[in-house]
């Protein structure tokens, strides 16, 4: 895959391992009403992984988009290999050796995996005709090298979020650039894939590539990053080697206070069975799922990517109605064929894909938050009781610390983590009895994460029943009363809190 020339280039990089590759200074970027970045600096050295840390909305993605030529900074300088540069656009940045994996996935759904990866760089013959065979072969090569198992000919829309994220990674790597920016590349991945990604990163590092790595997952930081920089509210806080500090230090730098307990599990009184599922099946996707859920209980659902966890949740909520099986609520069998029905039975469902099934991107934060609760209350003779709703939404957004100038802001302009908080708020505002959360803390910063955990736990203590799907095992282990594990569309076991461990879960999940 790697041509002679780039091999030579890589050797040159190696020779200069540790040199400054990219240096930025005094960067300022304003959006109307928000100063996203102010006098920010940052330095990336060759052959290292430099992590960026900071709360949601701290300005990490914005900074990276500036480096990748997508935004132009209002002020400041960018030096690449000691030379002042200003990019005219993403193409310019790409050509100068800066590639980026975006936080919001940027793939073309109706094109194949291979087409997505090689777009603009397709193998063509003399008269410009694309050689698809070679393109698939190139993709296969790349995937083999990176150890990814996805069909290059599959259309991207048919892939799961996790698979798409792998494709994005492969696409960025295929550019063979000097600087590789990864904006939360693992937000949809489980441990196995993360491990895998880290192997890829180490390999790239060894070749002298500089990697900027944004994540909210602390453990990743210590595992992969050589140094890290912290941002707070658009300002630069500091840079340190990751070997010099502890978790708590970083959190203090990020949030400006201590977070003592990530998983503040509150002891709840486990009540009666509220939801009972028996033999739930969606033909072709998952089979024969049975479990009981009690009031006050948090049921964690674990499994590898693509094991069908999300599909079970979708079936429970009537998004894709089950083809067979029974759902009982308070002991009576109910039909759930649409989300509206599910909501009438007191269910709420936070979907895993923010962009596709979560946000109304063009609408305001307020509209996004209130939408689900309009179906049964807060409406009098067709008119929405906006006053009452505003108060509720304001309260909720304070509780969850949504970072925004005001509630009329379009949700599109929020940082990823803040969007997630708005969606959680949407569902909490419906006062559900059964709350289904699919990757609830995806892309959420540590502070807010602890906050959300506390909230879930408190709600459970008040008698709410929770189903929580998560790919983060610490979260599952920390929060759940019981843990259901899935493997390839089948339930492989249910563990009690006291018997569960990382190893046991992985055994059941991987088989």
């Amino acid at each position, binding site marked *: 895959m790697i041509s002679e020339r780039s091999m030579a280039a890589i050797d040159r990089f190696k020779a200069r391992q540790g040199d400054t590759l990219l240096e930025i200074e005094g960067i300022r970027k304003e959006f*109307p*009403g928000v100063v996203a970045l102010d006098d920010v600096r940052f330095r990336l050295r060759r052959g290292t992984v430099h992590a960026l840390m900071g709360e949601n909305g701290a300005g990490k993605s914005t900074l990276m988009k500036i480096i990748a030529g997508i935004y132009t900074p209002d002020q400041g300088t960018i030096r690449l290999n000691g030379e002042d540069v200003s990019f005219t656009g993403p193409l310019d940045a790409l050509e100068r050796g800066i590639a980026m994996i975006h936080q919001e996935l940027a793939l073309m759904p109706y094109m194949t995996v291979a087409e997505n990866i090689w777009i603009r760089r397709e193998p063509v013959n003399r008269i410009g005709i694309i050689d698809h065979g070679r393109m698939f072969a190139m993709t296969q090569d790349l995937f083999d090298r990176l150890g990814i198992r996805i069909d290059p000919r599959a259309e991207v829309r048919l892939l799961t979020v996790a698979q798409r994220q792998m494709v994005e990674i492969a696409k960025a790597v295929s550019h063979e650039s000097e600087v590789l920016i990864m904006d939360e590349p693992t937000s949809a991945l489980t441990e196995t894939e993360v491990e895998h990604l880290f192997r890829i990163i180490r390999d790239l590092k060894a070749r002298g590539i500089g990697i900027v790595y944004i994540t909210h997952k602390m453990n990743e930081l210590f595992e992969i990053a050589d140094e890290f920089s912290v941002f707070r509210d658009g300002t630069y806080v500091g840079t340190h080697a990751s070997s010099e500090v502890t978790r708590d230090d970083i959190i203090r730098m990020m949030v400006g206070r201590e977070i003592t307990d990530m998983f503040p599990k509150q002891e709840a009184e486990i009540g009666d069975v509220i939801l009972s599922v028996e033999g739930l099946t969606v033909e072709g996707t998952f089979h024969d799922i049975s479990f009981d859920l009690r009031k006050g209980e948090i049921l964690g659902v674990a499994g590898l990517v693509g094991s069908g966890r999300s599909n079970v949740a979708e079936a429970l909520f009537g998004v894709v109605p089950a083809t067979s099986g029974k759902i009982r609520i308070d002991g009576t069998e109910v039909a759930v064929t649409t989300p509206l029905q599910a909501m009438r039975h007191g269910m709420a469902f936070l979907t895993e894909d923010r962009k596709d099934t979560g946000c109304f991107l063009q*609408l305001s934060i307020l*509209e996004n938050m209130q*939408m689900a609760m*309009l179906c049964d209350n807060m409406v009098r003779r067709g008119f929405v009781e*906006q006053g009452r709703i505003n108060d509720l939404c304001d309260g909720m957004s304070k509780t969850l610390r949504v970072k925004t100038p005001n509630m009329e802001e379009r949700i599109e302009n929020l940082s990823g983590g803040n969007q997630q908080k708005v969606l959680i708020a*949407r569902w909490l505002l419906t006062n559900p009895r059964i709350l289904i959360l699919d990757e609830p803390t995806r892309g959420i910063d540590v502070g807010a994460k602890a906050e959300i955990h506390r909230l879930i736990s408190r709600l459970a203590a008040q008698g709410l029943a929770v189903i929580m799907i998560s790919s983060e095992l610490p979260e599952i282990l920390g929060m759940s009363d019981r843990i259901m594990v899935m493997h390839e569309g089948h339930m492989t076991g249910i563990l009690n809190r006291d018997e569960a461990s990382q190893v046991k879960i992985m055994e059941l999940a991987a088989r």
Partner: protein
Amino acid sequence: MESVQIEPVSRPRRGIPQDLGILLVLFGVAATFELLGWIMQGQSFLMNPQRLTIMILQVSVVGIIAIGVTQVIITGGIDLSSGSVVAMTAMVAMSFAQAAGYDRAVYPGLTGLPVIVPLAVGLGLGLLAGIINGQLIARTGIPPFIATLGMMVTARGIAKWYTKGQPISFPSDSFAMIGSGAWPVFIFLAVAVIFHIMLKYTRYGKYTYAIGANPQAARVSGINVQNHLVKVYAVAGLLSGLAGIVTAARAETAQAGMGIMYELDAIAAAVIGGTSLAGGRGKIFGTVIGTLILGLMMSGFTFLRADAYYQEIVKGVVIVAAVVADVYRQKARTRTS
């Protein structure tokens, strides 16, 4: 089918709300005509109450349709059938509105009926057309473009077939009243106010925006997307029916060729007024302004006694320029604020 917005897009705007932007464009166009009026005709364009009334009068039928179309576009759909539905309802309503004793009436036994009859028939027929559109789109999942294109062709066919192309005339005075004087303007403005409120303050409105912004998310949020879509198209049909009644009453005749291309004018009014064909965005206020811009151009050119040939050429340029001006104004705001 929206413009490819590549720059990190439209920031929240403080100060002048976005609506008012297009209002500025309206003033700009009006001021240009005023200026040219003094230069070319030596008289004021705007300081003529009669002209101002006419300006609105002549676009009020398109305006009524445009309001219905706006909410359809907000759901991410489109309605191509409005112009034809206008013709169909005009024909059918008129056939029940003929003056007492008119001897060549379509239904000689049914002349001189109370005005409520043709009104009910017209509105009902429009509603029916809208419901069919909505059901097709919501239940079968075919693109709105095709469903309403089919209705466009079919409704026009029905209008022609109804009396084999013969126009229907001589309405009763009470029916003709609906289209006389400034009545069409009142009806237009009343409809605008009602729908402004509907879209902004009711659940109906919130759901309309939600579906346009993200139908999947709307469904997961407990909205019965299909039912709501049927409602939205039904309302659009109803308004087309109303437009048909008004236009027939105003012309005191109904003919199968009525309302040709109105759908395009209506969509244009909505889009000029800031409604996004990608769905999720749009305001009745903007549509009203968009309609007025179209009306302004119609009167303005006649006023300036522009050659009819140049008129058309210039009209296209002005529509584009109006929207370009609005886009640039927005960009400028974004930069400075």
